[in-house]
C-alpha cells in the first residue's frame, strides 16, 4: 500500500539534515511522477465526495432560481445526474408539478428527482403526466423514462399497478406513436393481456394496426410471460413485409414446432440474407443437431452470401461443443474444408479456425492450405499457427523470469 505524503513527512522529521534534503527531494519527485503513488486514501476520497456534494448544491441553487433564464438554469445541472438531499428532491418535485415553470425545466427537474418510486403520490403524478395527451411531449418523454425506471427499481409500486396499467392501456391509442410504443412496451413487459391481444391484432390485420407489424412483433417477443409463438408461426406463412418476417423468425427461436419453417428459410437460396441469418440463429437456439445439418448445406452453397456462410460455420463451432449433439463430423469437416477455397478472406479464415479446432486430420493438409492462401496477411497468420501447433509450449518449462 502506498504511504501518504503526510506519513512520509513524519518520517522525514526524524532524519539527519542531509537525509532530510534527500528525502524531501524524493517526495517531490514522487509527487511529480504521475501514478507513482496514485492510490487515494479514505481521507482524500471523503474530501472529494464532500466537494461533489457542494457542487451539486450549487447547481441546485442556480437551477431553482426563477430569476435566471431557463437556458442558464438547465446548463447549471448538465453535469448533475440527480439531486441528492431531501430538500433538493422536494424542490425538484415542486418544479416538476409547477405548470408556470418552462417545460424544459420541469422535464429536467423530473429526471433528477431521486426515489420517485418510494413516493406513491409523486409516482401517481408522473403516471398521469405520461397519460395526459395534452401534456407537452418533452415532459411526457421524461415521465416515460421515469416510470420505466420506477418499474425496474421499485417493483413494490406493483401494489398500485392495476391503477397504472389502466392508465397505460388508455395510452395504447395515443396520437403520439412514441407514447403508444412506450405504453405497449411497458404493458408487454408486465404480460398484460389487453396489450398482447392488441399487438396480435396489429400483426394479423395490418389495416387495424396500432403500430407497424414489425414493431408489434418486437414488443410481443418482449413479453416473457405470454406465448405469442403460434401467432408468429402463422404470420410466417405470409409475412406482411421483410422486417416483420425477420422479427417473427427471431421470436421463434427455441420453439420446436417452428423447426421445419426455420430450416427451410435457412436453406432457401432465394431468401434475403437477413432472413436466412435470423433463421439460422433461431435454428441454433432450437435444435443444435438439426442446425448442423442445415448449416452444413449452407456452407456448401457457393451462391449463399458470405455473411450467411460465415454464420453457419461459426454456429457449427458452437453446436459441436454442446453436449448431446449428434452429427457426422467427417461430413461437416469436408463441407467446411470447401470454404477454404471461397473468394472471401473472412470466410476462409472462419473455415480455417473451425478446421483447426475440430478436424483431427487438420495437420495433414494445413500446410498445403496455407501455401495456397492468396491473402498475404492470412497466409502468414496460418503459417504462424502451424508453427505453433508443431512446437507446443513445454508446460514443464519455467517461464522466463521478468525483471524488476
Amino acid at each position, binding site marked *: 500500500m502506498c504511504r501518504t505524503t503526510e506519513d512520509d513527512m513524519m518520517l522525514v522529521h526524524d532524519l539527519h539534515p542531509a537525509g532530510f534534503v534527500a528525502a524531501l527531494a524524493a517526495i517531490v519527485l514522487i509527487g511529480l511522477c504521475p501514478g507513482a503513488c496514485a492510490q487515494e486514501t479514505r481521507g482524500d476520497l471523503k474530501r472529494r465526495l464532500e466537494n461533489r456534494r457542494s457542487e451539486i448544491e450549487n447547481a441546485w441553487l442556480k437551477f431553482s432560481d426563477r430569476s435566471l433564464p431557463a437556458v442558464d438554469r438547465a446548463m447549471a445541472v448538465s453535469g448533475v445526474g*440527480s439531486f441528492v438531499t431531501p430538500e433538493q428532491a422536494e424542490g425538484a418535485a415542486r418544479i416538476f408539478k409547477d405548470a408556470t415553470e418552462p417545460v424544459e425545466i420541469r422535464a429536467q427537474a423530473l429526471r433528477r428527482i431521486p426515489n420517485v*418510486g418510494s413516493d406513491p403520490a409523486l409516482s401517481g403524478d408522473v403516471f398521469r403526466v405520461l397519460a395526459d395527451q395534452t401534456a407537452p411531449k418533452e415532459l411526457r418523454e421524461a415521465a416515460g423514462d421515469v416510470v*420505466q*425506471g420506477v418499474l425496474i427499481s421499485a*417493483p413494490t409500486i406493483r401494489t398500485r399497478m392495476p391503477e397504472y396499467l389502466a392508465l397505460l392501456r388508455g395510452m395504447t391509442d395515443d396520437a403520439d406513436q412514441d407514447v403508444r410504443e412506450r405504453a405497449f412496451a411497458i404493458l408487454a413487459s408486465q404480460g398484460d393481456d389487453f396489450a398482447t391481444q392488441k399487438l396480435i391484432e396489429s400483426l394479423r390485420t395490418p389495416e387495424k394496426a396500432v403500430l407497424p407489424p414489425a414493431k408489434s412483433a418486437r414488443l410481443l417477443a418482449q413479453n416473457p410471460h405470454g406465448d405469442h409463438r403460434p401467432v408468429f408461426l402463422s404470420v410466417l406463412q405470409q409475412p406482411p413485409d421483410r422486417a416483420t418476417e425477420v422479427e417473427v423468425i427471431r421470436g421463434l427461436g427455441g420453439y420446436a414446432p417452428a423447426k421445419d419453417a426455420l430450416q427451410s428459410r435457412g436453406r432457401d437460396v432465394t431468401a434475403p440474407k437477413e432472413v436466412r441469418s435470423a433463421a439460422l440463429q433461431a435454428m441454433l437456439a432450437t435444435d443444435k443437431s438439426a442446425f448442423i445439418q442445415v448449416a452444413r448445406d449452407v456452407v456448401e452453397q457457393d451462391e449463399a452470401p458470405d455473411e450467411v456462410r460465415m454464420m453457419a460455420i461459426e454456429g457449427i463451432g458452437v453446436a459441436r461443443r*454442446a453436449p448431446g449433439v449428434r452429427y457426422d463430423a467427417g461430413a461437416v469437416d469436408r463441407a467446411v474444408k470447401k470454404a477454404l477455397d471461397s473468394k472471401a478472406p473472412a470466410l476462409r479464415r472462419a473455415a480455417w479456425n473451425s478446421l483447426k479446432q475440430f478436424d483431427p486430420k487438420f495437420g495433414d493438409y494445413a500446410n498445403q492450405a496455407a501455401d495456397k492462401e492468396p491473402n498475404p496477411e492470412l497466409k502468414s497468420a496460418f503459417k504462424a499457427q502451424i508453427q505453433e501447433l508443431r512446437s507446443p509450449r513445454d508446460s514443464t518449462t519455467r517461464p522466463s523470469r521478468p525483471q524488476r
Partner: protein
Amino acid sequence: MRSFRPTFLAWCALLTGLVATLPAQAQLSVEILVNGTEDPTDDYVTWAPTRCQIRVHSSTNVTGDVNVVLDSPTADQAGEVLFGEALPFPARSVATEEMLPMSLPASSDWREFVIAGKFERPSTADKDAVIVVRANDPGAAVIGEHRLMVRVRKNANRLTPAERDRFLTALATHNMVEGRYAPYQDIHALASSQAHGYTAFLPWHRAFILRLERELQAIDPSVALPYWRFDEPAPNVFNLDFMGVSSGWWVQFSSANPIRLWSLPGFVGINRAPTFLPSQNPLVVDEDAIVGAPASYWYLCNPLESNPHGRAHVEAGGGGSLGFLDTAVRDPLFFLLHANVDRLWAKWQWVNDLFDNGPYAYWPQGSAPSSDPWTGHYLGDTMWPWNGVTGPPRPVSAPGGAFPVSTRYQAPPSTPRPASVIDYRGRVRAESDLGYCYDDVPHN
C-alpha cells in the same frame, strides 16, 4: 565499540561449514502452496490476504535452517503480490511487504506466510504473477517459483483485448454451449420483490452475479466479471467487439465477437435502444454522489437502486430487454451493470469501513416476522431462490437450486442470507471472503 575479530578457530569452523553445505545448497529447492492446496486451479488471489505455505523440498539435503527471500518481480501488465508474516489470521491482517525474508527448517516442515495482490497491479493474463524464492538474499539464485494470478473485477472500458475476449468466450460457452444462462433470466424475472424495492436489493444481486462469475471461472479461471462504469463514457464497451452497437433495436457485433450468436429460448439476439451514443454516458447519478451517501445503509441502498441503477437500466435498454425487470437478464450487459452497482456498494463500504453486520452496515437487522411481505430482506433471512422456499410471500417457484458451494471459498453458504455477503472480502472474518474484489477499491 570493539570490532569483531574472529579467532583462527572460528575462521576454520566457518570455512568447514561452507564447504560442507555447498553441495546441499546446489540442490536446494522449495515448494509453495497457495490456499493450502497443491491444486493449481485455486492459485488466484485478490487484494485480500491469502494464506500460503512454504517448505524446503523434502528431497533436499540440508542441515540447519535455510534463509530465503520471497519476492514478486514486476513485469509490464503482469500481476504483482505483496507479502506478510502469517500471524494468527485475524481478518484485518495485511500483506504489505515487497519482499519477505523467512527462515525455513531443514526438516521440511511447512512455514506459513500471507500474500495479497498489490493494489493497482492486477494480472492481465492467467498466472502472470509469480512468487520467486531466492536463497539468503535478493541477488542469489532462484530456488523456487510459483505462478498465480491477481484476479480482480475491472472497469470493462479498460480491459485489454485479450481480457475482453476471454470474458466473452466464457460467457458464450456458458450460454450457447452449456446452456446454463437461461435460468438466470427465470430467476431474475421471478425475483421481483425478493430482490428489488427494499434493502436486499444489494446483497441479493451480489450473490446473483457472484454465482455467474464462479460458473464462468469454472470455464476459464482467469475470468472476472468486468463492470460497466455507467457514469463515464464507455466506448470500448459499446463497440462491435464487446457488448455490441445498437442499430436502433437489435445489437450488432463484429464477426469475431464470441457472443455474436447470442440467444436464449424464445429470444434470439440482443435488443437495446440506448438513449446515449457509445461515446457518451447515460444521465445517472455520478459515483461521488452515491459513494458519498451518509454512513448508514438505508441512505445508500434506496437511492442507489433508483438512480443510478434504475436509470442506467432504462437509458441503456430503452424499450429493449435491459429496460424491464422481467427481461433485463436477456442482455448480458445486465451483469456488467450490476457489477458496477455492487462496486458502488463496495466502495461505500470501504469509505465508511462498514463490513460488519451492524445496523449501519445493513438494515433491517434480525429476521422477518412470519408472513412479513419483506421476508428475505432482513439481515438473517435466507434469500430466495437459493433457499428453495416457495409460496407467499416468496415466489411460486425457486428455479436454479441452492447456491453452489465453492471448493475454494467457504462463503456464501448454499442458502445465503444478506448477512453472508456483507463482509465480502473477509475483513471481519476471514471465512466470509467471497473471493472477488474491484480494481479501484483497496482492501485496507
